[in-house]
C-alpha cells in the first residue's frame, strides 16, 4: 500500500528505476513509514534558520587554469559496456528528451 506522501511510480521514473508492482507496493510502505518518522521535523522552529550551505565555514576559490593529466583512451574505453572504435556506443536515444 503506497503512502499518500510519495508517488513511487513517478519518482521511480524520474530516477530511471524499473520497479515491479510488488516493489512499488513494498517500497511505498517502507518509505511511507520513513516519511512518517520524518514528519517529526515539522516541530522544529526553522522559520528564521538558514539552511546549511556549507558544512565547514569558508569561501570557495577557483583552481588555476592549468592542464592536468588526462586518462589514456584505451583505459577509458576498456571498461565501456559497448564501444565502437574511439567512441562509447549507446542504444538508440529516441524517446529520451
Amino acid at each position, binding site marked *: 500500500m503506497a503512502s499518500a506522501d510519495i508517488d513511487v511510480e513517478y*519518482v521511480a521514473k524520474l530516477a*530511471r528505476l*524499473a520497479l515491479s508492482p510488488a516493489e512499488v507496493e513494498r517500497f511505498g510502505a517502507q*518509505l511511507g513509514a520513513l516519511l512518517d518518522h*520524518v514528519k517529526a521535523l515539522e516541530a522544529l522552529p*526553522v522559520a528564521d*534558520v538558514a539552511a546549511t550551505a556549507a*558544512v*565547514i565555514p569558508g569561501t570557495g576559490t577557483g583552481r588555476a587554469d592549468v592542464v592536468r593529466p588526462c586518462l589514456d583512451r584505451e583505459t577509458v574505453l576498456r571498461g565501456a*559496456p559497448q564501444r565502437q572504435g574511439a567512441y562509447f556506443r549507446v542504444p538508440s536515444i529516441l524517446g529520451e528528451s
Partner: protein
Amino acid sequence: MDGVLDLGVREIAEAVNARRVSAAEIAEAALSRLRERDPHVGAFLTVTEDLAREAARRVDERVAAGERPALAGVPAALKDNLCVTGTRTTCASKILENWIAPYDATAVRRLLDAGILPLGKTNLDEFAMGSSCENSALGVTRNPWDLGRVPGGSSGGSVAAVAARTAAFALGSDTGGSIREPAAFCGVVGFKPTYGRISRYGLIAFASSLDQIGPIANSVADAAVLYETMAGFDPYDATTVAREVEPVSAPLREDLRGVRVGIVKEFALDELDPAVRDVYAQAYRDLERLGAELVEVELPTAEYGVATYYLIAPAECSSNLARFDGMRYGLRVEAADVGATYEATRAAGFGDEVKRRILIGTHALSSGYYDAYYVRAQKARTLIAADFARAFARCDVIACPAAASPAFAFNAKSDPYSMYLMDYYTIPMSLAGLPSLSVPCGYVTPEGAAGPLPLGLELTGPLFAERALLDAANAYETGTRHAAKHAPPPLAEALS
C-alpha cells in the same frame, strides 16, 4: 612471523625500517594468514596479491636505499568503495561487480607512498548504505567475536579484517556512522576526522556533504599516524580544507587532567539495556578517574538527527548514483532504447536499500517537496550544528555510546527504520562535520552470544580539534586497556 602480524602499525613499520623483517616477508605472511582466516570471516571481496607483493618489493628497495617510509610494510585492507588503480572496485554492488578503477583515491595514494601493503578490498553495505554489512550484494562478512552476528556497517569488511588481525589497519568511510558503529561492534578503533580533512577524491560517493574516509586500527595511536599521513588539502577535492594538519603522531596524552568531558543529557544511559548501561557508566567513571571533569551538556536537536540524515543523505545519493546508468562503465542490461536500458540496468544492478534511498532522495528533491523535505532538513542540520557549538563552549570533548547495543544477529533488523536507528548516536556528529571516533570500552555477553561482545565509547571533538580528540581517546585507551591483543576467541576456535 605471526607475532609481527599482531603488532600495531607503528611497530611493524619500525621493524621493517630497522630491517628486522622485510616487507616481502610480511606480505607473504599476511597473505597466508588472510587465506587461512578470511574464509571464516568473509571480510575481503578481492585479494590483491600482486599489488601487495609489488608494494613490498618497492618498500624493500627504498629501505635498502636508506629511506624510512612512515608506514613501511604495513599490511592494509581497503574498503571497496575506494578506487585503487587496476583493482576491481565494486562498492559491493552488482552494478560495479567487474569495474576496474583507472585511478587511485588520493588518501590511498598517500598511504601507498608511505609504504603500505594493500592486501585487498573489503566488503561493505552496498554503496556504503547500511549499518550491518548485510546489504552487500557480493558477500557476507561475519563478526569475528560471534560468527553468527553482523560486524556492523557500512565498513563491515574493514573492521572485521582488523579485528581478525588479517590486516594491521583498514580504511573505512563514514557518512552517518559507518566507521564508528562497526568499530564498536568489532572492538577496534575507528576514527572519522573533521569533514574536509581527508580528500574524498576516489571515494565513491554516497552523500557528498557527509562522507569522510577514516582509519580503522587496533589503537588510537595507530589511527593517529594513519590520519596524519592521509590528511591535508587536495587540489582534486574542492571540499578539502587548506588548513595545517597538527602533528598527531607525537606522543599522545595518557591522562585527562584539565579536560572537560561533556555527557549528553539527551543520550541518557538508563534508556539502554542494563548490562550495556553498566559498561558505559563505568566508562564515564574511568574518564573521571583519569582526571577528566564531567560536565552535562545538552543537544536538544540531536533526536532529530536520524530524520534529518535520512532526507539529506538519500537526496545527495540519488544524484550521486545517477551516473550508474550502463552507458560508460559497469553493468549494462541492454534494452530497446536508452531509456529502457537505464531502467533495466539500474533495476538489476542496485539492491533494495540503494533503491529505497534513491527513491526517497529523489522524492525529497522533487518539485513541490524540495522545501518541505530537503530545505527543512538542511535547516534542522544548522540547528544540530549550533547545539554542538554551544556544547563545546562548556566542554572539550563529548562522550557517549557509539551504539545502543552490541552486534546483533543476521536478519535481526528486517525493518529498514530499525536499522537506521543503529546510527542514532553517530549521525548528529556527521551532520555537524565534527571529528569523532569509537574506542573499545568493554564487553557484554547477551544470551545466545558466542562470547563477550565489544562495545565502543564514542568521543567527539569540535571542528578541526583532531589533536585534542586523539589525546583524550589515547588517554582513555591506555588507562583502561579494553582492546583485544589477538583475534577473538570465536575466530580462534573456528581456525583450530
